[in-house]
């Protein structure tokens, strides 16, 4: 089954006529995703990569019965695009756009909760279930189908790890990048719960980084509720306090959010910790 996506997921690309939107729509089609529509206000009636473009989410949903969307709309207009998707009844919305003001993210995430939509991101690479569907921007070539779930706050670091898994002959059920911003729509804990319930996932790789307490909360959940093994890597052991390390959320502030605190919590909860990303496949081979 995998989590969140299925082979029946019907996807709208919001911002399909932009450079990234067009390119990624093509890559998603290559992956096997059912990309059923694109939306760019004012560009209705066009086709991009054979996909019909609509002026509004409402039009696109009523014509195609889409249930997921991926947002490439620039930061200044992203909030409006996400609210429009929620309003049109979209169940899963992956927000790829980076540098969205925190207040905007906070508001569309709260609105999604009220209306029952799931937001993934923002500032994330999306989600992919090899062999089924991808609503994201991860390179297609790194994946192979299998039974390891991957959840991460990072982008390219996730590609690196997924690629290493594939090279080691370890396939993935679903890989999800939850985003590098301080406020995000889907947390580690929510994804861990889904993986724990998913009968196609045997074990989970968690890729965290400095900043906030999401990994500590994940550790509590792992200790209390996870029966499946969890393998974790935390980036930023050598990061100095008070400096924002690339991601808006990657900052050690007021003595909180250090890599050591996360590693300690996860270790205590029974997760196996990799000291370098490449170690993850070896740990899984040893355990499973």
């Amino acid at each position, binding site marked *: 089954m995998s989590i969140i996506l299925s082979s029946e997921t019907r996807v709208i690309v919001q911002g399909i006529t932009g450079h990234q939107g067009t390119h990624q729509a093509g890559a998603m089609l290559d992956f096997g995703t059912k990309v059923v529509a694109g939306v760019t206000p004012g560009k209705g009636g066009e086709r991009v990569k054979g996909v019909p473009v609509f002026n509004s989410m409402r039009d696109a949903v009523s014509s195609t019965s889409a249930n997921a969307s991926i947002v490439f709309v620039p930061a200044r207009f992203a909030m409006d695009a996400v609210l429009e998707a929620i309003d049109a009844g979209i169940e899963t919305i992956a927000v790829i756009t980076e540098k969205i003001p925190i207040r905007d993210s906070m508001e569309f995430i709260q609105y999604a909760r009220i209306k029952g939509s799931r937001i993934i991101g923002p500032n994330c690479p999306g989600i992919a279930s090899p062999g089924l569907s991808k609503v994201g921007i991860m390179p297609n070539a790194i994946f192979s189908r299998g039974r390891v779930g991957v959840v991460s706050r990072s982008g390219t670091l996730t590609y*690196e790890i997924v690629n290493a898994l594939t090279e080691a002959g370890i396939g993935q059920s679903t890989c999800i990048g939850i985003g*590098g911003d301080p406020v995000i729509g889907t947390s580690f804990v929510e994804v861990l719960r889904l993986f724990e319930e998913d009968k196609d996932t045997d074990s989970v790789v968690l890729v965290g980084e400095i900043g906030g307490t*999401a990994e500590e909360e994940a550790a509590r959940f792992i200790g209390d509720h996870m029966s499946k093994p969890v393998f974790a890597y935390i980036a930023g052991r050598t990061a100095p306090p008070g400096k924002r*390390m690339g991601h808006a959320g*990657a900052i050690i502030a007021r003595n909180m959010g250090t890599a050591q605190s996360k590693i300690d919590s996860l270790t205590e909860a029974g997760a196996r910790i990799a000291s*370098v990303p490449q170690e993850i496949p070896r740990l899984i081979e040893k355990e499973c």
Partner: protein
Amino acid sequence: MKLQEHRAKRLLESYGIAVPEGYLIRNEGEVLPVTDPVVLKAQVLSGGRGKAGGVRLASSLEEARNAAKDIFGLTISGYRPKEILVETEVDIDREIYLSIVIDRSAGLPLLLLSTEGGVEIETVPEEKIGRWHIHPFVGVKDFMVRGMIERLGLEGRSKKEFDRMVRALWILFYEMDCELAEINPLVLAEEGEIVAADAKVTVNDDALWRHPELSDAEEELTQLETEAREKDIAFVQLEGDIGVIANGAGLTMATLDNLSLHGGRGGVFLDLGGTDDPKKVEDALELMLKASPKVILLNIFGGMTRCDSVASGVLAVKKRLGISVPLVTRIRGTNEKLGRDMLSEAGVIALGSLDEACRKASEIGGS
């Protein structure tokens, strides 16, 4: 973006929150005649200002001038104060702590209130801090303010003033896209007046386009940090001697961590963002050369771009500017063999394994 204290206070004032009377000086000659005692405060963004001698009291013009002269001569966490805020000293009856921050776990603003003001909130015992989440669709409501007033035990005029100011602070926090709006201490002066004696305001960088009025606010960035920002590159100066360039924040951090396992120390964190665009690689290399590290480690995990075009970018910089320091590259992705061969032929160390690249860079950096 952290705002300087005087800037933060002007902002508070514009939302109707009382601040001490004061003015800004750029040299000691600008100190005005002193009637009531004044406090002189260095305008720097880093913490530890008080400990460094950046806050001084004075009760005469001469004292104030001398204090100003001393403060302008200080270096506080690497920065020399360019401005001093001269304020009339406030008569303190009680000090309170009040702030609104973003609670990342809840994804909501959180108001923190403590009867122990004037000290760092981290040192205040948990049970002495009152917490209220503020939902952006709901705002600050009467029942919350009643709870706060009860906690503080306010009466009469101060009760009314607090009610007004706490709502104003929330509006400011919301409208100004704040990550932090902290008043510490919030002073209960005589006759029930409430004054923000110090203020820290951090505005969300990603929302600055909504606030053109802050475009002239001064930030304490180095020349290279300013240049990196213009090129949309995440750049952090560290203490070691190995310059690390990678694509993606997580990958860059992971590279630095991996270096440390081999005894290497990162000197620069340079994140291209989640791109492997050859043009961006060129920009980054150029910027990195200006930081003059002992060795550069370039780690690219290719997504869409081909490794040979990243290699061409590296070689272009090498040809145009010359790269005088050793360059260790680790490039993975489409056409990786071709990319590595191109680099090797030009004398660049080109590897496929991250661990090996980190070991190599650490060896060179440590020698």
